């Protein structure tokens, strides 16, 4: 029962913060709400016994990505409300479409046949050891490839963000 309560609590926080991300006026606030949202999701991970992922999630998202975002927002001086508003019409169309997508996904979910899973023999699926074993045996090649991807992304972003002098 306690776990249900924890879940609902976390879920409420997630949804609320997500909505705030979308609806807050200033980008700075959006970033902040998003960080909060990520933390709640990390909570979900812990609830699902995926400790490794929870930690990585916080490090990568909250620690790295969001800091990067924050820096960018400040660098571009976007913290003040500079965004011209969209018309009510286009806003409502967006909301309606999003809502409809939600309904459709809901309908899809309802018609989904979940499980039945054979009861998991172990509960340590999310432990560092397990994930590490997987990562370094079955998924070794993709794992190594990600490093290549990262280097490419790094170089790419440096090149893109660099000031072009000779134009």
């Amino acid at each position, binding site marked *: 029962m306690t776990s249900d309560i924890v879940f609902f609590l976390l879920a409420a926080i997630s949804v609320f913060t997500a909505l705030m991300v979308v609806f807050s006026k200033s980008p700075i606030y959006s970033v902040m709400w998003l960080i909060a949202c990520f933390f709640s999701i990390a909570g979900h991970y812990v609830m699902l016994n995926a400790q490794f992922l929870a930690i990585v999630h916080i490090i990568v998202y909250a620690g790295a990505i969001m800091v990067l975002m924050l820096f960018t927002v400040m660098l571009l001086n976007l913290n003040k409300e500079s965004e011209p508003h969209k018309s009510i019409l286009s806003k409502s*169309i967006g909301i309606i*479409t999003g809502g409809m*997508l939600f309904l*459709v996904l809901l309908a*899809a979910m309802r018609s989904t046949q979940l499980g039945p899973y054979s009861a998991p023999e172990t509960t340590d699926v999310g432990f560092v050891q397990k994930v590490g074993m997987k990562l370094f045996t079955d998924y070794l090649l993709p794992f190594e490839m990600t490093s290549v991807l990262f280097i490419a992304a790094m170089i790419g972003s440096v090149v893109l963000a660099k000031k072009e002098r000779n134009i």
Partner: protein
Amino acid sequence: MEQFIQPINLIAPSLWVPLLPLLGFFLLTFFGKQLKSAGPWIASLLVLGSFLLSVYLFVNLGNKQSLDYDVFTWMHWGEVSLNFGFLIDPLSLIMLLVITGIGFLIHLYSIGYMHHDEGFVRFFSYLNLFIFFMLLLVMGNSYLIMFIGWEGVGLCSYLLIGFWYTNDAYNDAAKKAFIMNRIGDLGFLLGMFFMLFYLGGLDFATVLSNAAEFEKGAPLLVVITLLLFVGAMGKSAQLPLYTWLPDAMAGPTPVSALIHAATMVTAGIYMIVRSNILFSLAPFTLEVVMWVGVATSLFAAIIGIKQNDIKKVLAYSTVSQLGLMFAALGLGAYTSGMFHVVTHAFFKALLFLGAGSVIHAMGGEQDMRRMGGLWKYIKVTAITFLIATLAISGIFPFAGFFSKDEILAAAFHHKIVWVLLSVSSMITAFYMFRLFFLTFFTSFRGTEEEKHHLHESPWTMTLPLAILSLFAIGAGFLGMPAVMHMPHWFNGFLAPVVETSKSILGEAHHVDHNTEIMLMLLATALAVTSIVIAYVFYVSRKTVPEPDTETKGLAKWVAKKFYIDELYNAVFVKPMMVLSDVFHVVIDKLVIDLFVNASAWMVGFTGRTLRLVQTGNTGFYLFIMVFAMMVLLLIQLVQ
């Protein structure tokens, strides 16, 4: 034919008959330069070799035996197999002797005639090739092999007519000959398809024995024979496909003698005699053959009257004589037609060679209006020419008399044909003597220079003339009329070939002896009358045909050959050219490419239209993306 036994030992010699000239062709083509002036002699000797082999075969085979063997399988599919094989029977033997014999003489003659030509060696290689194909034509044991020869001689005819290839008019004539022949060949080819499909093969034995199963007048046989006759019309220059032959005189004169008088053009007659059973079973075709022959004979004879080129006259006379032969075939007198082929080969070759000798003496001049009085300059030529002219006019006892008389006798029961053929013979006698008198009598009408140049030809040319004139005199005695109480050797020799036809056609209409004698006398009288008329015109009155520009009225029509060439040009050639351009410019470039380009334009148009959807508004793109995702999910759900 079952009584024939195969004399195996004769196969090898018979194979060498066509191979020798082929060897000559290759030798002269590839080693012509090395052989130098020996080349033509080698070529001639090889043909002589063929002739001797033919004589050997003739002596050993006689008409009681025949050779029929396959060398290898040429084409085959499924159950059908078409073999490359030879048949030597009395009919082919006669043709073999004529071809190789006259062929050799003409080779010999050409050594003298073509001596100064730069294409001397090339000429002989073509001649050898021609002999090869002609031998293939008469030796084949199936229509297919005959067809090889048939097309092959067409090719050689093309090569030899256009021998002087720098002259475009000659090239045109050569091309015309080839194409006209090809029209006929298509008929032949289709005829072969019918035979292959319905008669189960193409070799003579199969076709003729299977055809004999059909009743007389069966439509299939009529179709086949008509198609074959189309082929014969092309090759043997019958109406309406005759126009190439007069033009073919562009070739060197020995070629005209060999190909366009003695041998190739008689291939059509050979073919019909070869398939006489088919034709006898198709009376309708025989009727057609007869009328075409009669019409051609008369038509060409009339044109012959007004020609002034010595070779053109001879050409029309050839067409006319061929018509006569076809008329004989149409009357069912196969052996008579064949007999005339043989005698005609001798005297027409002689005429052409004589004409060649005249042209040689005149230094290339062919217009009779510029000749005259040549008798005293070139005696040998003149005498042999006279013999040949008498022979073609049908004067006793020259060869033409006997063969022509036989045909007229066969036509006697068919009065209209008989009258027309007699008229045609009479005209023949007239224009031949017109030619003779204009050339050899009265006084010389050429330039002084030409007069100075006049000389008798070398022995290589006069010897063939002499030999041929012996045959022109004597060949007739091979087939003595019944009234002379001598055996008709020729008919007897060919009897095995036509015996089935005889039984199909029934007994020929025999004229009794008195009538026959009367017919002979009448024919001779008509010929003599013509000669006298010609004498009065061209010797006594010394008439010389007027220049071309002054010809008027009907005479002009005749001199211009009734404008048949112009008619063909306007009806077939020109429209074809226009059609060609229309197809190319209108249908290809406009109609079909319109569709092609229209589809290309459609693609472009669609692109230009769909481009407008790309507003560049990122928000809009996002919206569309989400919306489309939703729709896809919905579709998935609904299903």
